[in-house]
């Protein structure tokens, strides 16, 4: 049969599978169209031995608009998202929090889901529910709130309140400095 993309050459046994949710469509294509599709995705058909997650990522990123100026790094392990793009591996558990937005479409595309329903989830009630391990280093919300309160107190001319808040801020800042220096 004729290649279903270029409709010029005969299909050479290469199949492109396109999934719409759970439905699949098989397109029979010629070798040239198959190569062209893969080339656009940065995959060399002759060199590729098998389709690895690394290849999946390359293909995925080539079809995605990426914000390459984002230099965000994980505060726990120091990895960046471009480290992930390079290695196909994340640095630590906290990376899943830090890069959540960018990882979500990749996870959904590869796994077909982004919701755990196996061991440890509420879905499986007979197994003990695991403690969610939160990362130890978290920003101090207290400090920010106090600073806002201080501003408000000064604006409203409640100078005694402002003095109390200012002292609280000072002691919090001194404590975190001590932790960093120890």
């Amino acid at each position, binding site marked *: 049969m004729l290649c279903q993309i270029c409709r010029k050459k005969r299909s050479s046994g290469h*199949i492109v*599978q396109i999934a719409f949710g759970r439905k*699949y469509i*098989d397109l029979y294509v010629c070798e040239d169209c198959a190569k062209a599709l893969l080339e656009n995705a940065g995959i060399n058909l002759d060199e590729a031995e*098998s389709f690895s*997650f690394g290849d999946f990522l390359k293909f995925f990123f080539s079809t995605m608009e990426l914000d390459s100026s984002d230099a965000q790094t994980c505060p*726990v*392990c120091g*990895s960046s998202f471009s480290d992930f793009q390079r*290695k*196909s*591996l*994340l*640095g*630590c*558990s906290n990376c*899943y929090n830090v890069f959540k937005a960018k*990882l979500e479409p*990749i*996870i959904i595309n*590869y*796994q*077909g*889901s*982004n*919701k*755990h*329903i*196996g*061991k*440890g*989830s*509420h*879905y*499986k009630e007979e197994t*003990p529910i*695991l*403690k*969610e*391990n939160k990362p*130890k280093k978290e920003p101090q919300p207290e400090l920010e709130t106090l600073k806002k309160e201080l501003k408000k107190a000064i604006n409203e001319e409640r100078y005694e309140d402002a003095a109390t808040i200012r002292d609280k801020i000072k002691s919090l800042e001194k404590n975190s400095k001590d932790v960093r220096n120890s």
Partner: protein
Amino acid sequence: MSEIVESFLIKPPSWNISSNGVTLSSRVRLVRNLSEFPFATSANLIQKKSVREKVFSTLESYFKSAGINVDFIEAETLTERDINILLGLRLINYSFSKDLKGKGLCLSKDGSISIVINEVDHIKIHIYSENLAFEKIYSKANSIDDYLIENLNISFSEELGFLTACPTNIGTALRASSILHIPSIVTTGEINDIAKFLGRKDIMIRGLFGNEEGLGDVFQLSNTETLGKTEEEIIGEVYNVSEQLIKREEELRNKLVSTSPEEVQDRINKSQGIIKYAKFLSLHEAFEIISLFRMAKLAGLLPEIELEKINTALLKISPEMIKAIDPKIKTTQEENKLRAEILKQILNEE
């Protein structure tokens, strides 16, 4: 040199050679990480050693109370020969063998349990079986896992499940796989349709003895997805697909043997001649003979050779096992020479 690994060369683990059907072996793998350390590929040596120490200590208490005999190995102590034996037995993979610093291995004396520390993730629990006893081996893995969860900070997220270095493994972090010997499915060309059919079922298939000449007849099936399904669903899917392939292989094999028994016997006779007289045998040549013998044996032919001997031959022809048997071997020709000798020893009734 590791004693337990050496012992596996003399007496391979039962699951490697006891298979009596299309299934050569099955495996359940659980991946776990400690939340307070970076994943193994981003951790430094000190962190990796801490992980190894903690996990070894926890596993030691578990296996002691479970009454299971295990060995704990710091990977730096493994010799090249040990590595070849472990690779040949599929107790480790190539990623483990590159740069052993900080890595660890916990092996049960019967070889059915292999726990790898710090390869890509902190902990990978593998349990093996010689048939499709998925429920049994999953239950063993699960029991080890429960103990780890109780005694260590295992990284887990309500939304994404167990966290792993690669997002392809998160969620249940469970991979269930079966290794099947399906020569008749390959001969008839049905293997191509099967690859397509499996893609739709979220099962991946990989030829283990493939090369330029062909796909080989031994394939590994495993689930591709680990998130969004329960452990029972994943195991059920791999089990069902394996059963379907086994049935189809048995059907096609019986058809092939019953419609052309003389041709099959002739192929056997020619192969027996090759084994008896060949001085050199490549991996591909040896594999073809063993695959034929195994298919014939399961079809009721070849009464004089035990299936376990054929399974053992299949195990020993890999380059890794050949190099483990004689570490002095350097060239492919030397390898091919020893391979021919080994096959003669195992399969020739002298």
